[in-house]
Protein backbone atom coordinates (compact mmCIF):
# COMPACT_ATOMS: atom_id res chain seq x y z
CA UNK A 1 0.00 0.00 0.00
CA UNK A 2 1.54 3.26 -1.04
CA UNK A 3 2.08 5.62 1.72
CA UNK A 4 0.16 8.81 1.26
CA UNK A 5 2.08 11.78 2.33
CA UNK A 6 -0.15 14.79 2.70
CA UNK A 7 0.81 17.33 0.10
CA UNK A 8 1.81 20.70 1.28
CA UNK A 9 -0.88 23.13 0.33
CA UNK A 10 -0.05 26.15 -1.66
CA UNK A 11 0.03 29.16 0.63
CA UNK A 12 -2.86 31.52 0.19
CA UNK A 13 -2.22 34.47 -2.01
CA UNK A 14 -2.03 37.78 -0.29
CA UNK A 15 -5.23 39.72 -0.81
CA UNK A 16 -5.00 43.31 -1.89
CA UNK A 17 -8.05 44.57 -0.04
CA UNK A 18 -6.23 45.45 3.16
CA UNK A 19 -5.52 49.11 3.51
CA UNK A 20 -2.11 48.78 5.06
CA UNK A 21 1.08 50.79 5.01
CA UNK A 22 1.90 49.17 1.66
CA UNK A 23 -0.48 51.60 0.07
CA UNK A 24 -2.93 49.14 -1.45
CA UNK A 25 -6.33 50.72 -1.85
CA UNK A 26 -5.92 53.19 0.94
CA UNK A 27 -9.35 54.73 0.54
CA UNK A 28 -11.48 51.79 1.69
CA UNK A 29 -11.50 48.72 3.91
CA UNK A 30 -13.57 45.58 3.81
CA UNK A 31 -15.65 44.64 6.83
CA UNK A 32 -14.50 41.40 8.45
CA UNK A 33 -18.03 40.40 9.34
CA UNK A 34 -20.33 41.29 6.41
CA UNK A 35 -17.62 41.87 3.73
CA UNK A 36 -18.98 45.29 2.88
CA UNK A 37 -16.53 47.63 1.16
CA UNK A 38 -16.46 50.67 3.40
CA UNK A 39 -14.99 53.98 2.24
CA UNK A 40 -12.86 55.72 4.82
CA UNK A 41 -14.58 59.06 4.35
CA UNK A 42 -17.62 59.22 6.61
CA UNK A 43 -20.04 62.00 7.42
CA UNK A 44 -19.65 63.33 10.92
CA UNK A 45 -16.34 61.71 11.82
CA UNK A 46 -12.78 61.62 10.56
CA UNK A 47 -11.89 58.41 12.41
CA UNK A 48 -14.13 55.71 11.05
CA UNK A 49 -13.05 52.33 12.36
CA UNK A 50 -16.18 50.21 12.06
CA UNK A 51 -18.53 48.99 9.36
CA UNK A 52 -21.62 51.24 9.05
CA UNK A 53 -23.81 48.24 8.28
CA UNK A 54 -22.98 45.73 11.04
CA UNK A 55 -20.85 48.00 13.32
CA UNK A 56 -18.03 45.43 13.46
CA UNK A 57 -14.45 46.67 13.80
CA UNK A 58 -10.97 45.14 13.55
CA UNK A 59 -8.37 45.07 16.33
CA UNK A 60 -5.43 46.81 14.69
CA UNK A 61 -4.71 49.71 17.01
CA UNK A 62 -2.74 49.53 20.24
CA UNK A 63 -2.90 52.08 22.98
CA UNK A 64 -3.33 55.09 20.71
CA UNK A 65 -6.13 55.07 18.12
CA UNK A 66 -4.62 54.87 14.64
CA UNK A 67 -1.16 53.71 15.66
CA UNK A 68 -1.56 50.24 14.01
CA UNK A 69 0.70 48.72 16.68
CA UNK A 70 -1.52 45.78 17.54
CA UNK A 71 -0.71 42.34 16.15
CA UNK A 72 -3.98 40.69 17.23
CA UNK A 73 -6.13 41.63 14.19
CA UNK A 74 -9.15 39.95 15.71
CA UNK A 75 -12.72 40.84 14.95
CA UNK A 76 -14.25 43.37 17.34
CA UNK A 77 -17.96 43.10 17.92
CA UNK A 78 -19.99 46.05 19.16
CA UNK A 79 -21.24 45.22 22.66
CA UNK A 80 -22.64 48.48 23.95
CA UNK A 81 -23.48 52.11 23.44
CA UNK A 82 -22.70 54.96 25.76
CA UNK A 83 -23.41 58.67 25.60
CA UNK A 84 -20.89 61.35 26.38
CA UNK A 85 -21.85 64.34 28.46
CA UNK A 86 -22.43 66.38 25.29
CA UNK A 87 -24.79 63.74 23.92
CA UNK A 88 -22.39 62.10 21.44
CA UNK A 89 -22.89 58.38 21.18
CA UNK A 90 -19.88 56.09 21.53
CA UNK A 91 -19.72 52.48 20.46
CA UNK A 92 -17.97 50.02 22.77
CA UNK A 93 -16.14 47.30 20.82
CA UNK A 94 -14.96 44.04 22.34
CA UNK A 95 -12.24 41.99 20.63
CA UNK A 96 -13.43 38.43 20.11
CA UNK A 97 -9.83 37.14 20.00
CA UNK A 98 -8.11 38.81 22.95
CA UNK A 99 -10.96 40.51 24.83
CA UNK A 100 -9.73 44.10 24.67
CA UNK A 101 -12.28 46.91 24.74
CA UNK A 102 -12.25 50.12 22.76
CA UNK A 103 -14.58 53.05 22.20
CA UNK A 104 -15.28 54.97 19.00
CA UNK A 105 -17.68 57.71 18.07
CA UNK A 106 -20.52 56.71 15.79
CA UNK A 107 -20.55 58.03 12.23
CA UNK A 108 -23.37 59.79 10.45
CA UNK A 109 -24.12 56.87 8.13
CA UNK A 110 -24.10 54.11 10.76
CA UNK A 111 -27.05 51.76 10.66
CA UNK A 112 -29.61 53.42 12.93
CA UNK A 113 -31.52 50.20 13.49
CA UNK A 114 -28.36 48.34 14.57
CA UNK A 115 -27.44 51.21 16.89
CA UNK A 116 -30.87 51.25 18.46
CA UNK A 117 -30.89 47.48 18.89
CA UNK A 118 -27.56 47.77 20.69
CA UNK A 119 -28.83 50.56 22.92
CA UNK A 120 -32.00 48.64 23.73
CA UNK A 121 -30.18 45.41 24.53
CA UNK A 122 -29.80 45.97 28.31
CA UNK A 123 -33.49 46.77 28.56
CA UNK A 124 -34.67 44.05 26.18
CA UNK A 125 -32.82 41.31 28.03
CA UNK A 126 -34.41 40.57 31.35
CA UNK A 127 -32.60 42.75 33.88
CA UNK A 128 -30.73 40.72 36.46
CA UNK A 129 -32.62 42.48 39.24
CA UNK A 130 -36.14 43.64 39.85
CA UNK A 131 -36.22 46.82 37.79
CA UNK A 132 -39.34 48.13 39.50
CA UNK A 133 -37.47 48.39 42.78
CA UNK A 134 -35.00 50.78 41.19
CA UNK A 135 -37.70 53.26 40.23
Amino acid sequence: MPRRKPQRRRPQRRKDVLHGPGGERGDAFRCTSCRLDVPLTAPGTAHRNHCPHCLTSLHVDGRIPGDRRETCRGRMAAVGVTARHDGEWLLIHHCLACGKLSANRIAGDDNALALLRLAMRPLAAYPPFNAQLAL
Partner: protein
Amino acid sequence: MSNDIPSSVLRTTAFPCVRCGLTVAAFAPDGRRRNHCPRCLYSQHVRDQVEGGPSECRSGMSPIAIAVLRNGDWELIHNCTRCGELTSNPICGDDNQFILMRMAVRPLAQPPFPLETFGDL
Protein backbone atom coordinates in the same frame (compact mmCIF):
# COMPACT_ATOMS: atom_id res chain seq x y z
CA MET B 1 -5.10 33.96 44.85
CA SER B 2 -2.27 32.71 47.03
CA ASN B 3 -2.78 29.72 49.26
CA ASP B 4 -0.89 30.96 52.32
CA ILE B 5 -3.56 33.54 53.20
CA PRO B 6 -6.38 31.92 55.20
CA SER B 7 -9.80 32.25 53.68
CA SER B 8 -11.18 34.01 56.76
CA VAL B 9 -8.70 36.85 56.20
CA LEU B 10 -9.62 37.04 52.52
CA ARG B 11 -13.28 37.21 53.36
CA THR B 12 -12.77 40.26 55.55
CA THR B 13 -10.46 42.24 53.26
CA ALA B 14 -11.83 45.59 52.18
CA PHE B 15 -10.86 48.59 50.10
CA PRO B 16 -11.98 52.21 50.20
CA CYS B 17 -13.85 53.56 47.21
CA VAL B 18 -11.81 56.14 45.29
CA ARG B 19 -14.82 58.39 44.75
CA CYS B 20 -17.25 58.17 47.65
CA GLY B 21 -14.92 56.74 50.29
CA LEU B 22 -17.18 53.85 51.21
CA THR B 23 -15.34 50.91 52.71
CA VAL B 24 -16.16 48.02 50.40
CA ALA B 25 -15.67 44.37 51.23
CA ALA B 26 -13.48 42.77 48.56
CA PHE B 27 -15.88 39.87 48.16
CA ALA B 28 -19.50 40.15 47.18
CA PRO B 29 -22.16 38.21 49.12
CA ASP B 30 -22.17 35.56 46.39
CA GLY B 31 -18.46 34.91 46.96
CA ARG B 32 -17.07 36.59 43.85
CA ARG B 33 -14.30 39.15 44.04
CA ARG B 34 -15.50 42.61 43.18
CA ASN B 35 -13.64 45.57 41.83
CA HIS B 36 -16.11 48.41 42.03
CA CYS B 37 -17.98 50.24 44.76
CA PRO B 38 -21.58 49.04 45.03
CA ARG B 39 -22.82 52.53 45.91
CA CYS B 40 -21.33 54.74 43.16
CA LEU B 41 -20.03 51.89 40.89
CA TYR B 42 -16.62 53.55 40.57
CA SER B 43 -13.56 51.35 40.18
CA GLN B 44 -9.82 51.94 40.36
CA HIS B 45 -7.33 51.50 37.54
CA VAL B 46 -4.91 48.97 39.01
CA ARG B 47 -4.44 46.59 36.07
CA ASP B 48 -3.02 47.42 32.65
CA GLN B 49 -5.36 45.92 30.06
CA VAL B 50 -3.13 46.44 27.02
CA GLU B 51 0.06 44.80 28.23
CA GLY B 52 -1.22 43.03 31.33
CA GLY B 53 0.18 43.29 34.81
CA PRO B 54 -0.28 46.07 37.35
CA SER B 55 -0.86 49.61 36.19
CA GLU B 56 0.74 52.70 37.64
CA CYS B 57 -2.24 54.92 36.85
CA ARG B 58 -4.33 54.11 39.97
CA SER B 59 -6.93 56.77 39.30
CA GLY B 60 -10.69 56.39 39.40
CA MET B 61 -12.63 54.61 36.70
CA SER B 62 -16.13 55.86 36.01
CA PRO B 63 -18.88 53.50 34.83
CA ILE B 64 -19.94 54.50 31.32
CA ALA B 65 -21.91 51.68 29.74
CA ILE B 66 -23.60 48.33 30.15
CA ALA B 67 -22.84 45.40 27.88
CA VAL B 68 -25.04 42.34 27.79
CA LEU B 69 -23.47 38.90 27.51
CA ARG B 70 -25.01 36.12 25.48
CA ASN B 71 -26.50 34.56 28.60
CA GLY B 72 -28.23 37.81 29.52
CA ASP B 73 -25.88 38.88 32.31
CA TRP B 74 -24.99 42.53 32.53
CA GLU B 75 -21.39 43.71 32.41
CA LEU B 76 -20.24 47.10 33.55
CA ILE B 77 -17.83 49.01 31.27
CA HIS B 78 -15.46 51.29 33.18
CA ASN B 79 -13.51 54.16 31.68
CA CYS B 80 -10.38 55.46 33.39
CA THR B 81 -10.83 59.16 34.09
CA ARG B 82 -7.11 59.84 33.63
CA CYS B 83 -5.81 57.66 30.82
CA GLY B 84 -9.05 56.56 29.17
CA GLU B 85 -8.60 52.79 29.32
CA LEU B 86 -11.68 50.58 29.31
CA THR B 87 -12.39 47.53 31.45
CA SER B 88 -15.41 45.32 31.88
CA ASN B 89 -16.67 43.50 34.93
CA PRO B 90 -19.85 41.62 35.78
CA ILE B 91 -22.25 43.41 38.07
CA CYS B 92 -22.90 42.20 41.60
CA GLY B 93 -26.23 41.59 43.24
CA ASP B 94 -25.87 44.52 45.64
CA ASP B 95 -24.83 47.12 43.07
CA ASN B 96 -26.76 50.35 42.98
CA GLN B 97 -29.68 49.54 40.69
CA PHE B 98 -30.60 53.18 40.27
CA ILE B 99 -27.25 54.01 38.66
CA LEU B 100 -27.40 50.81 36.58
CA MET B 101 -30.78 51.71 35.14
CA ARG B 102 -29.68 55.30 34.59
CA MET B 103 -26.70 54.08 32.56
CA ALA B 104 -28.86 51.71 30.55
CA VAL B 105 -31.32 54.41 29.47
CA ARG B 106 -28.90 57.30 29.08
CA PRO B 107 -28.16 56.75 25.35
CA LEU B 108 -31.87 56.54 24.65
CA ALA B 109 -32.43 59.87 26.37
CA GLN B 110 -30.03 61.57 23.95
CA PRO B 111 -30.58 59.85 20.59
CA PRO B 112 -28.51 61.11 17.63
CA PHE B 113 -31.43 60.50 15.28
CA PRO B 114 -35.20 60.90 15.71
CA LEU B 115 -36.72 57.81 17.27
CA GLU B 116 -40.21 58.43 15.91
CA THR B 117 -39.48 56.60 12.64
CA PHE B 118 -38.84 53.37 14.52
CA GLY B 119 -42.41 53.29 15.69
CA ASP B 120 -43.51 52.20 12.21
CA LEU B 121 -41.24 49.14 12.15
